[in-house]
């Protein structure tokens, strides 16, 4: 591949996660849900890769496999550590994995269920520090105070419980916890989708500020295309467990090469009453990942599909420098981006 490998932080090769479907008293496996079905992508240091797609497309599962919150079925997750050594997270031993987790943290979607209601902020934000024996006592309190300040919360709040805080503040608490061990890489799974728009802007700004100050790398998993466009340097689009397109943000949004990306962009209602409505309304529904169609998974809904699309699955190819597409007709079609 053409890209510069010097500052590569993460490279995912052929990642699979198949969940078995079990039936009957013997719990016999009768099939598999192909949640993640051969996904490959890379993230460079200090950049934000947005991972978008509709519900059930496997974007969350991909994020969790990357940090091995769930075991991938197969594939490689190559991560370059701060000391320069590259490890495969997918096969790492428990002890090494635990040490590595200091560098990789996660921010969750729901700020209500991801914080323990019986723990104070000091316990929640300080837990990663105590578990990893980084700090205790007075030192712990100082570090938690600094973390709270950093995410825009008052250090005096550290004896309070999560119920005393609003959704936006809770999301800040979750971010403070993720920052506690000074990570390099953060998987953010829909971090703003539960928040109101005025609060969403505050949290997005905070994530960008932190990235600047601490040199963080983000894998930003979300379904909101406007939010992803705002925060990402590059964007990858998933459909039924497969990555269908990946490119630089502006490239992907203005000159998409996959028909699904085009349809997805055109489906977003624009906050402008004068906008010209040229909507591509897709027929039918998202394919079932337990029983996907033949050939290209998108062909039953694609208005450009040919006989080839019905029978042969296309490869993810680098059609232009740094622009990867999984479509037989990528080079012959002229698709409409968000500006059109």
């Amino acid at each position, binding site marked *: 591949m053409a890209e510069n490998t010097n500052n590569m932080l993460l490279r995912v090769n052929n990642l699979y996660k198949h969940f078995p479907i079990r039936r009957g008293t013997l719990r016999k496996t009768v099939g598999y849900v192909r949640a993640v079905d051969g996904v490959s992508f890379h993230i460079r240091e200090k950049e934000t890769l947005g991972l978008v797609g*509709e*519900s059930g497309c496997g974007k969350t599962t991909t994020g969790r496999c990357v940090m091995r919150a769930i075991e991938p079925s197969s594939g490689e997750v190559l991560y370059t550590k701060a000391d320069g050594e590259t490890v495969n997270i997918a096969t790492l031993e428990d002890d090494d994995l635990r040490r590595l987790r200091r560098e990789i943290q996660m921010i969750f979607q729901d700020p209500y269920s991801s914080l323990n209601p019986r723990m104070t902020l000091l316990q929640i934000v300080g837990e990663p520090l105590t578990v990893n024996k980084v700090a205790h006592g007075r030192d712990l309190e100082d570090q938690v105070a600094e973390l709270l300040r950093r995410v825009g919360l008052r250090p005096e709040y550290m004896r309070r419980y999560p119920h005393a805080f*609003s959704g*936006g*503040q809770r999301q800040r608490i979750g971010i403070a916890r993720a920052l506690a061990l000074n990570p390099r890489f953060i998987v953010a799974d829909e971090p703003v989708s539960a928040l*109101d*728009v*005025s*609060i*969403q*802007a*505050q949290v*997005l*700004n905070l994530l*960008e500020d932190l990235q600047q100050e601490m040199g963080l790398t983000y894998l930003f998993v979300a*379904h909101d*295309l*406007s*939010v992803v*466009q*705002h925060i990402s340097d590059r964007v990858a689009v998933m459909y039924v467990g497969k990555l269908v397109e990946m490119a630089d*943000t*502006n490239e992907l*949004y*203005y000159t998409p090469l996959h028909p699904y990306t085009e*349809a*997805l*962009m*055109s*489906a*977003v*209602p*624009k*906050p*402008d*009453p*004068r*906008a010209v*409505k040229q*909507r591509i*309304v*897709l027929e039918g*529904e*998202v394919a079932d990942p337990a029983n996907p169609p033949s050939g290209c998974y998108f062909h039953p809904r694609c208005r450009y599909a040919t006989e080839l699309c019905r029978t042969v699955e296309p490869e993810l190819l680098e059609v232009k420098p740094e622009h990867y597409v999984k479509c037989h007709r990528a080079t012959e079609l002229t698709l409409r*981006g*968000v*500006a059109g």
Partner: protein
Amino acid sequence: MNQDQMLLEVKNLKTYFFLEEGTVHAIDGADFHITRGEALGVVGESGCGKSVTGQSILRIIPNPGRVVEGEIIFYRYNKRADGTEVQEAVNLTALDPQGDEIRSIRGGEIAMVFQEPMTSLSPIHTIGQQIMEAITLHQGVDKEEARRRTIEILHRVGMPQPETTVDSYPHQMSGGMRQRGMIAMALSCSPSLLIADEPTTAIDVTTQAQILQLMRDLQQDLGMAIMFITHDLGVIAEMTKRVVVMYMGKIVEGADVDDLYYDPKHPYTRALLNSIPRLGQQRVDRLESIRGMVPDPYNLPPGCPFHPRCNSFMPGVCDVSEPETVEVGPGHEVKCFLYQQ
């Protein structure tokens, strides 16, 4: 405005929730109207009272909430034997919430589509049974006729294979199909007003496009009015002609959709429009966020409820008394001291 075209008038509506911790003023003096066949958008953030507005109209406010003041006048149109229509005004707030009259209106003349189709449909009845119940209740037809009409309406909302889906349970359907089922149920009695409370929030964007298209077509074909309650400024821009913006139980601005998006007057509306990332806009470094957060509902700030977060805050004015609603242009009303003489 032509009085004949008026469908619903809300005057100084106040709906309060009486809780142990205190009284929440969910709606605190709202005035607006909907004309026949019109699409009105109600926009605001969570807790602003937009859903309670819909619930107040249908008189289905959950306990311990109550309409404490104000009127909701619903204009019914009864066809006389000679084909002419007579207008009859009913004050919905004066009706017994369990009485016969509100029951004949609820689901019949005013219907509602809820946000979460999984929790608002009964899991132990087929979609057909649930729609047939509404039809037999309001239209007094027999079972066979009700089933025939149900299949027809399922066909109308684009349900795949309506003859077989009519016997499916909600769990056998996808989110988009369930929402189509909800819409079919709401439309089954040809309401004159449809209240759609976040109808596409729980749905994916490509399915949302299908549902919005469907609702637009149905509104045009059936000539019903829609009250579109949502937090999504994109959906509002696409679906409605007129918008009211709510903040802490009050309507802070109301205008034609074009005026509201291109010439917003209230500092809250302006901030809201500036805080959303826009698809296709060149990347901006920082989003304009609204500082602070929505105030504690038990403990509202004095004066204008937005003043602690407002960029145009005038000390000694905004924190002392509440502004009046003034008209700043044709049909454009704002509740802010900046525009007061």
